[in-house]
């Protein structure tokens, strides 16, 4: 099976107080299609930076990422954005719903950006799958944290992405709600055959993924 995500010698280095600070050091690994992988590590280990690079949200100092066989950093920012729109879905710790939009409108957004004609029907369908049909016209402010993250899940899956990037998806939720959200995410993942790349510091959550990748001080632990 071909790798859907492949990181090749990724290095990320920033200037901090005039000194170069290495955040990621020579990170290489591959993820097969349909696989679920957890990136684990303590705060400051570089796991969020790695996720940003894998999704093409940030640019590495050296090295590259192949996404579905495409060299991400041979593309410019707009081309990467289009590729993201086509391939990837996102779930974030802080939900990142647009505050002015209703639940339904938030789910419609990626479809509208791609110019899909039946955005509304697909979005309603996605909301139904996360059990939020009744709340589709509420704005994020009027939804609970768990509900907001379910809307985010609906938004992530509505484009039927090949890869789902999740950044601490339960970090802002209590244990019980977090469990429900994870269940839902893994179920959708299985149902759509999506590749899951999950960043977390939660060992229990990480164990529910097929594979774990541990980061420490910017390096992948063997």
């Amino acid at each position, binding site marked *: 099976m071909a790798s859907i995500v492949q990181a090749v010698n990724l290095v990320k280095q920033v200037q901090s107080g005039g000194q170069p600070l290495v955040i990621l050091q020579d990170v290489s690994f591959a993820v097969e299609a349909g696989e679920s992988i957890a990136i684990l590590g303590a705060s400051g280990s570089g796991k969020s930076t790695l996720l940003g690079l894998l999704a093409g949200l940030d640019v590495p100092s050296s090295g590259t990422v192949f996404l579905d066989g495409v060299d991400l950093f041979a593309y410019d920012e707009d081309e990467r*954005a*289009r590729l993201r729109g086509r391939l990837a879905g996102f779930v974030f710790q802080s939900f990142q719903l*647009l505050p002015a939009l209703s639940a339904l*409108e938030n789910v419609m957004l990626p479809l509208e*950006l791609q110019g899909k004609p039946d955005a509304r029907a697909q979005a309603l369908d996605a909301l139904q799958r996360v059990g939020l049909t009744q709340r589709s016209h509420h*704005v994020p402010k009027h939804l609970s944290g768990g509900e907001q993250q379910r809307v985010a899940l609906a938004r992530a899956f509505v484009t039927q992405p090949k890869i789902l990037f999740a950044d601490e998806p339960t970090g802002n939720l209590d244990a019980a709600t977090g469990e429900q959200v994870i269940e839902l995410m893994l179920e959708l993942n299985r149902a759509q055959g999506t590749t899951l790349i999950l960043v977390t510091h939660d060992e229990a959550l990480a164990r529910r993924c097929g594979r774990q990748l541990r980061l420490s001080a910017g390096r992948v632990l063997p």
Partner: protein
Amino acid sequence: MNTLRLALAMLRRDWRAGEWRVLLIALLLAVGSISTVGLFADRVRLALQQESHALLGADLRVSSAHPLAQAYRDEARQRGLRVLGTAVFPSMVTRLANNLPSVMQPVEVQALEDGYPLRGKIMIVDATDVNGSGHQALAVPARGTLWVDARMLRRMALQIGDEVNIGAAHLRVAAQVVRDVDQAVGFASIAPRVQINLGDLPATKLVQEGSRINYRLLVAGEADDVAGYRSWLQSKIKLGEKLEDVRDARPEVRLALERAEHFLGLAALMSFVLAGVALALAARHFISRHLDSCAVMRCLGASQAQVLRIFLYQFLLLGITAVVLGSVLGYTAQSVLVESIAAMREAGLPAPGWQPLAQAAASGMALLLGFTFLPLWQLKRVSPLRVIRRELGVPSANTGMMYGVGAAVLCALFLWQAGSLKLGLTVLAGLTAGLLVFGLIAWLALRGLAALPLGKRHVFANLARHGRSNAVQIVALSLGGMALLLLTLVRAELMQNWQERLPPDAPNHFMVNIQPDQRAAVRTFFAQHKLAAPELFPMVRGRLIAINQRSVSADDYAEPNAKSMIEREFNLSWSEVLPEGNQLVQGKWWSSVEPAALSVEEGIAKTLGIHMGDTLTYDVAGNQFSAQVVNLRKLRWDSMRVNFFVITTPGLLADYPASYLSSFYLPPGRAQAGDALLKAFPNLLVIDTEAIIAQVRHIMDQIAQTLSAIFLFTLLSGLAVLYAALLATQDERIYQSAILRTLGADSRYLRRLHLGEFAVIGALSGLFAAAGAALLGWVLARNVLEIPYAPSPVFWLVGLAGGMLTVMLAGWLATRRASRMSPMQVLAA
């Protein structure tokens, strides 16, 4: 198309969430105030123009010693203009009384066609007036009647209903004219005036070879039509025919008009500046609130262009909405304004044109894009990484360029709106300097206060911590305050200084044709009647025939003004000293030993192309003399004093026949003294200029009232800036309050902290505003109005206290919510 739909949907959703309110309010107020000022100024300008046209009785006047061609009249009619003819000539009125010796009085007869005057109104008292206060004449004198003025009634002991003769015509006095249009200051209007119907002119049998009749054609209508007709006429006009409008005819009215336009332009400029500042602040606020949305959209696959388009469409739609609503607001506001000011309502202002609305709309869009396009450009470059790393802010942008674009847009609008390059640049230069200096001083002051060992350390430390954003806020508030102070206190002081230039005892009579041997007797007469001793100026009439030995003729000049100056005789005078109200601009005044030298007024020197050192040759009654120009003078034409374009050294004109002239002030109720003067010196020509002065003063009063009204809208714009400035830092304050409350601060502490901060910000803003307004007022006074100006001390106090109180009150209202919200509400959001 899809992006547009998405943009509209987002706009609708954002609107629901209140995100657009500040921007819309700022822009709405900007367009509203610009269009109000524009529409109002347009109406007042038209009214002022019509008012001053009333001095001619028309918009345009053609006059000639011969009847004017019918073609002039036909062309005017064809162009949709109103047109009529009058004839003016000197004659004698004889009173007919059975038992009394006949009395004769030299008069100026005005024969009027139906419809006169085309501009202004004539107030008369006739038999229908019970209380004798007068009313507007609705028609010209009926056939067989005449109107007379108060002087006629007095001098001939006439009463309404009496009968008189003019030439062969037998006429009845039907009314007394209380206020006339067309009061000439020129030397033509030497005698009392009577008005008759043009139809009675043949019956006087005075129209014959050699009679001194001046035929006039008066034209009035829409400004564009008049201008078109004017340029048509200029190509047709024959020698001996004179074309004039109010600006040609009356230098003092032209000055008043130009100053009025300057002031109104200034008020409009201030709206622009304030709107620009409010928009810049609101856009900053808007953008900081949309960073996340942008990052999410980029993350979900939107291209940079897509993000830019989405926001640009929204901004354009917002602009159109604001422009439409603002225009409606402006139109409504100016009508309400006009209706609510008695003087304006009674003035019956003409309807405004559509140009101010178009101008306001275009300016509004230019302001919006000028101040928001670059921030938007910045917004599209937000890193998608922000979705996982919140600390990533707005991508660093070239702020210099951002402010540069804003300033360029403002600059262009200034020049467009002001029409006067000098005024526009003066205001703009003051503004730019103020921005930079205030910003720097504010930042330094905040840091300095924090370093001082003062009691309220936490307040100052907190202010200094956000030094840059607080400095921006102080600068914005100062600008608003500066505009307000400039338009209230500075304006009032400037207006007062300006009006004081025409003191209540400004000369109201001219006295001409005093013979050299009458000088002592005239002075004695004034002393006997306890009137201020008049200054007598010698006058010799001569024509300029050569400059530097090269003969000049009207054909050498393109400007009609210059042509007529060459064609007619100048009033030349001599003096040992520089006359009062004159100011040297080049060269030196002469010592008594200089034999032959000339002093020329700078305006006429420019018109005729005369420079320092040129030798001018004049023809006086067939004899010629030449002399060199040794200095140029500036004159105050609105001083109502005797002024001369050209003055020579004493002795140069000694051999030519001279007469003397003077101006003097005759207090109201002393008209008898004027009559006695004429009886004692029958050869004198005494000209009453009271009416002209009253009219100039009336125009000044109207300008003053107008400005006070327009100030209201600038005040609103200033408040919009204040609102936007407070809102820009409100989120941060609310967030900070939540954290402080979590750490145990009670609402009293927070209130004191906030009020302390607002007091410092307000005080600094108020001081800067006062400093800026004083400086700008001084520059305006010096360079544009050419009057002295120094702000009063109370001015600084008003700035300081006003700034402090306003900002404290507005700030308290804006952050009240912050101290009441539970920390959880804020921090969880």
